[in-house]
């Protein structure tokens, strides 16, 4: 649990200008599922799960995900973007308890 909010981003090791780059990203998060009591009733509480993921590159949003509790624990997402200039790819995760975590990856051309 201590690792909650650790963000990992994987980009290809070599990128050429103009490439469409496939990115994988992962965050350590419990994504709490709905719990039920002995009678099978749903426990009413504020479940903690990630409900929004936003990826930006050079200040522009390139992909966003709205998610529900049907997404797996330690959710992993993949998306693509067109690498035009060197810059920073940033992915921000928001959860229902108001926490946000972000990870960045440098996009450099080799």
């Amino acid at each position, binding site marked *: 649990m201590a690792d909650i909010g650790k963000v990992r981003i994987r980009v290809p090791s070599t990128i050429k200008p103009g490439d*469409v*780059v*496939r990115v994988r990203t992962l965050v350590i998060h419990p994504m709490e*599922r*709905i*719990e*039920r*009591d*002995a*009678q*099978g*009733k*749903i426990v009413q509480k*504020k*479940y903690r799960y990630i*409900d929004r993921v936003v990826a930006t*590159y050079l200040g*522009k*949003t*390139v*992909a*966003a*995900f*709205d*998610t*529900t*509790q*049907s*997404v*797996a*624990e*330690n*959710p*992993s*997402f*993949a*998306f*693509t*973007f*067109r690498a035009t200039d060197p810059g920073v790819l940033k992915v921000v995760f928001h959860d*229902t308890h108001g926490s946000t975590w972000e990870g960045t990856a440098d996009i450099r051309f080799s």
Partner: protein
Amino acid sequence: MNHGRSISRRRLLGGLGVLGVAGAAGGLTLGRPARAGAQQQAAALGAQESVQDALRRLFGSRPMKDGAGSVTLDVPLIAENGAVVPVGVEVASPMTAANHVRHVYIVADKNRIPVITRATLFPESGRAFVSANVRLGETGDVRAIVEQSDGTLLQVKREVKVTVGGCGG
């Protein structure tokens, strides 16, 4: 199947840990009940509802075309562990400002919360590809619904067999 199911329940219980035995068993025997007690906080995107209700809520009565020609849904045939199932969706689209894929919805028919995620894409995305790790409660269809920038909806679906359900209570 019965045999396999009882094993899967046991493994599910062992794996979950957090749920009391009684609670989990109660939840399982109830099947998929109680839209009445639906979670309000999940708000716009996800709710405990049937997949028909979910699709009606999201898309109303808009026509949905078969996307078999242009949409590729990448799911395993058999998911041994429903708690983590990789689902990928790729759409053949030029991704220009005039013609691109705006949203990709991933929906699992048999989940208590059928709408899993809505991905929003932009022309800057370059290619219409998304993937996510999802939970599947039980064997059933997984759909990808693609909304293009002109508002057309395309749908593809495939059945995924789930050995051990991953949605728990």
